[in-house]
């Protein structure tokens, strides 16, 4: 029996774990007390990893479709056969239509996201599709334009924590990292303000809950800017010495009065004033950003407002504020990991639609639109790698499904059969984190997750699969094995994978106020890494790109104010995608320990609204919008506005006995049947998935049969 240190990848938080291995089998997975952030704790998902690892439904062998697409008839094949089919199809498409007719689509942000990006670059295609338009890339890109760097949060040392756009304590991708730090800060007396349409656990554990109308967060932030400037609560020294554009911002923000914001956000003006003062005067303060802010058509403006707030209160690059973190790996190496060495950005191949602030990445929907419309050209072959777009992408039925149904060739690599793999021509079994060597190299901690057990069936390491496909096509991944690749990845640190394994955790110590010390700019001068060397409240990069240089508010495309005529038919504001602590996106519904904790999707609806509609707690209800409907169980609550409902996201039914073409219940509770890939935020391409209109009504008995 041995106790092995590793890094959990059951979600993408990369928490430290200790795995007990007995006779070649993992028998226990627990938190590692030596992990610098999680300190021995571990979330429900990580603790249930054994049931995922040894689940009877795991994909075990490569399989080829034999019947019609989506009919669930498969033939087991060998890995060499699978590689041959894949390499043959991709090579044929490349030759006939050009490399850009191949798309690689990825799921959540584990390290493999970068590895598949590298694979796409090695194939010569710019069409790597992911959720970059609505998950973390927008906030990084916006703050990079204004401050010259991505902003993180030093929650631990903060005296005032503002949680925007997420249920911070349950946020699925870093739950225990965040929860440990938030609760520790609270015990030390930090003030917490949570902005959320519903009372989440984070709101409940905060001093103040601001019940914002879905999609209107930016208006609150703009009104805070208004109050802070109007009342002179900004950091005069920082503004005078380290920013440009303050007079323009001050003039611009006059229009965003708390009284204006009250009409927009449904938060009382006096509450907006009170919280603006608290945020500006309780130092140090940090604002945390969740994806709800990145999933509107006004994403750029919202994040601009947030970045500007952090700057004018002097909260940038300070302990307890919105920090600029130095990663362990240099940024240039991270870009190489994604394949910049294989295909420079100036490569002549024209990519599908992208947006000015995230020019290097394609939103998933650009690939689906290309397949369905043939414009500007048609993607012919797709490899979906660790993703489930049928559940997780916008406009699931009318766009994603249509595209997957008609694409010439679809291969899917995953741990389990999914509604997406149900539509594939070729299914490839992927290895879990317990079955392969991997690295966590993001942020300020580097750690290893070594191969501890043999793969189930013929499940394989993703990178080795990429290497084999490329070799068969006469191309290269730049390494001959995952091990070799990881050593190359770590080379700038003068370390090897074995060194990281031996060290446990490599932690990058952080220096604050780097702007005073000349640590942010390539020229070594004090200041920020922007054209002016200052925080650009009036953003020159935005002006150059044709975007608003000052933060603006954009009303959601579907709302009581922008589409009042639609409100007659669809009288409720629909928000969705709030996280639950036992699931990661569309994953883990087949893990018994986790599923029992949340067996069915719930629609949160106000008690009064439900009473008016004749809906009782636990009733199955239809949630219907302009583009379609799905059903979830009504959960009656007082913790949401009578004008708003909240639906869960990512739901399918792995256990279903329905015929194969029902795609494991993909069309039962899938809220992305109601969302749309348009219109988009001008800067980031973000889609309006968090604020829509809907109606809710009880399912009939016939519906449920």
């Amino acid at each position, binding site marked *: 029996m041995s106790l092995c240190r590793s890094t959990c990848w059951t979600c993408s938080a990369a928490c430290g774990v200790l795995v007990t291995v007995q006779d070649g089998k993992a028998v226990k997975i627990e938190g590692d007390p030596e992990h610098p952030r999680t300190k021995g704790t571990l979330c429900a998902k990580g603790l249930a990893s054994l049931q995922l690892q040894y689940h009877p439904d795991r994909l075990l062998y490569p399989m080829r479709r034999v019947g019609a697409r989506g009919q669930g008839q498969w033939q087991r094949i060998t890995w060499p056969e699978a590689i041959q089919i894949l390499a043959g199809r991709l090579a044929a498409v490349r030759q006939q239509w050009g490399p850009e007719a191949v798309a690689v689509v990825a799921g959540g942000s584990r390290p493999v996201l970068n590895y598949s990006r590298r694979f796409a670059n090695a194939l010569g295609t710019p069409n790597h599709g992911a959720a970059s338009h609505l998950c973390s890339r927008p906030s990084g890109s916006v703050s990079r334009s204004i401050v010259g760097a991505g902003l993180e949060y030093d929650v631990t040392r903060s005296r005032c924590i503002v949680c925007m756009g997420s249920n911070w304590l349950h946020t699925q991708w870093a739950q225990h990292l965040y929860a440990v730090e938030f*609760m520790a800060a609270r015990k030390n007396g930090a003030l917490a303000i949570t902005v959320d349409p519903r009372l989440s656990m984070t709101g409940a554990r905060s001093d103040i809950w601001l019940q914002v109308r879905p999609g209107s967060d930016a208006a609150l932030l703009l009104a805070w800017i208004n109050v802070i400037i109007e009342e002179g609560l900004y950091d005069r020294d920082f503004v005078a010495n380290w920013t440009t554009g303050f007079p323009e911002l001050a003039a611009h923000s006059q229009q965003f009065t708390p009284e204006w914001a009250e009409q927009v956000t449904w938060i009382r003006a006096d509450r907006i004033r009170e919280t603006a003062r608290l945020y500006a005067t309780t130092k140090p303060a940090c604002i945390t950003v969740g994806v709800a802010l990145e999933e509107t058509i006004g994403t750029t403006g919202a994040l601009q407002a947030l970045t500007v707030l952090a700057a004018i209160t002097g909260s940038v690059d300070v302990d307890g504020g919105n920090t600029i973190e130095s990663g362990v790996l240099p940024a240039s190496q991270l870009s190489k990991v994604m394949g910049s060495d294989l295909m420079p950005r100036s490569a002549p191949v024209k990519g599908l639609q992208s947006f000015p602030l995230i020019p290097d990445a394609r939103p998933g929907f650009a690939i689906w639109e290309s397949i369905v419309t043939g414009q500007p050209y048609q993607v012919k072959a797709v490899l979906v790698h660790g993703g489930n777009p049928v559940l997780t992408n916008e406009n699931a039925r009318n766009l994603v499904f249509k595209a997957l149904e008609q694409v010439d060739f679809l291969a899917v690599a995953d741990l389990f059969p999914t509604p997406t793999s149900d539509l594939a021509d070729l299914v490839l079994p992927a290895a879990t984190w317990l079955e392969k060597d991997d690295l966590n190299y993001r942020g300020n901690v580097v750690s290893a997750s070594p191969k501890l057990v043999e793969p189930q069936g013929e499940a394989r390491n993703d990178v080795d699969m990429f290497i084999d496909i490329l070799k068969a096509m006469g191309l290269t991944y730049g390494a001959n094995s995952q091990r070799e690749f990881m050593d190359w990845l770590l080379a700038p640190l003068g370390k090897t994978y074995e060194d990281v394994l031996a060290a446990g955790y490599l932690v990058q110590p952080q220096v604050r106020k780097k702007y005073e010390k000349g640590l942010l700019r390539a020229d070594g001068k004090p200041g920020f890494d922007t054209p002016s060397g200052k925080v650009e409240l009036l953003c020159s990069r935005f002006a150059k790109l044709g975007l608003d240089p000052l933060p603006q508010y954009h009303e959601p495309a579907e709302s009581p104010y922008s589409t009042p005529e639609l409100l007659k038919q669809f009288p409720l504001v629909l928000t969705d995608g709030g996280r639950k602590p036992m699931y990661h996106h569309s994953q883990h519904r087949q893990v018994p320990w986790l599923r029992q904790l949340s067996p069915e999707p719930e629609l949160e609806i106000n008690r009064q609204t439900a009473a008016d509609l004749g809906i009782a707690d636990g009733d199955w209800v239809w949630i219907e919008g302009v583009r379609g409907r799905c059903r979830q169980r009504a959960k009656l609550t007082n913790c949401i506005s009578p004008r708003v409902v909240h639906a869960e996201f990512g739901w399918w039914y792995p256990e279903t006995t329905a015929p194969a073409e029902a795609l494991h219940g993909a069309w039962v509770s899938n809220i992305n049947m109601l969302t749309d890939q348009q219109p988009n935020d001008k800067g980031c391409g973000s889609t309006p998935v968090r604020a829509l209109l809907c109606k809710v009504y009880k399912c009939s008995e016939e519906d449920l049969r």
Partner: protein
Amino acid sequence: MTPRISDEPSLCIGCLACLVACMQQKNLAPGGSLIKVQVVEKPDPPYDLLCNITYCRHCPNPPCLAACPSLAIEQALDGRVTFLLESCTACGACVEACPYDAIRVSPESGKASICDLCWTSGEPRPACLRHCPSGALSLLGVPQ
């Protein structure tokens, strides 16, 4: 003082990690954790989410012990409830008697599962408590 878990519900974040930690440690069926967290809404404004955490209290006069017809439950000198696996007939009397819903009978093993603070597994602190991110759980009656 009898060793036992204690909880501070205002610190609980309802993440349910303790439940899964317990199920893994004790190899329990889904839903069978010996610790339970129920998140309930405060019915009147200002609204709040309250966590009810239930687990074995190692009661001074354990009702489970009194109810067990096969002498499988005993009390150690320090007051802890202890369990003799071999004597258990899985009759379920202890499950009925426990006011904290903290005992399960596993249909697979044909035995009861009772909280022993994970001591029989050689762990210094119980799995539920070790994985709690918020400090909602603590251990009483044990020198730290």
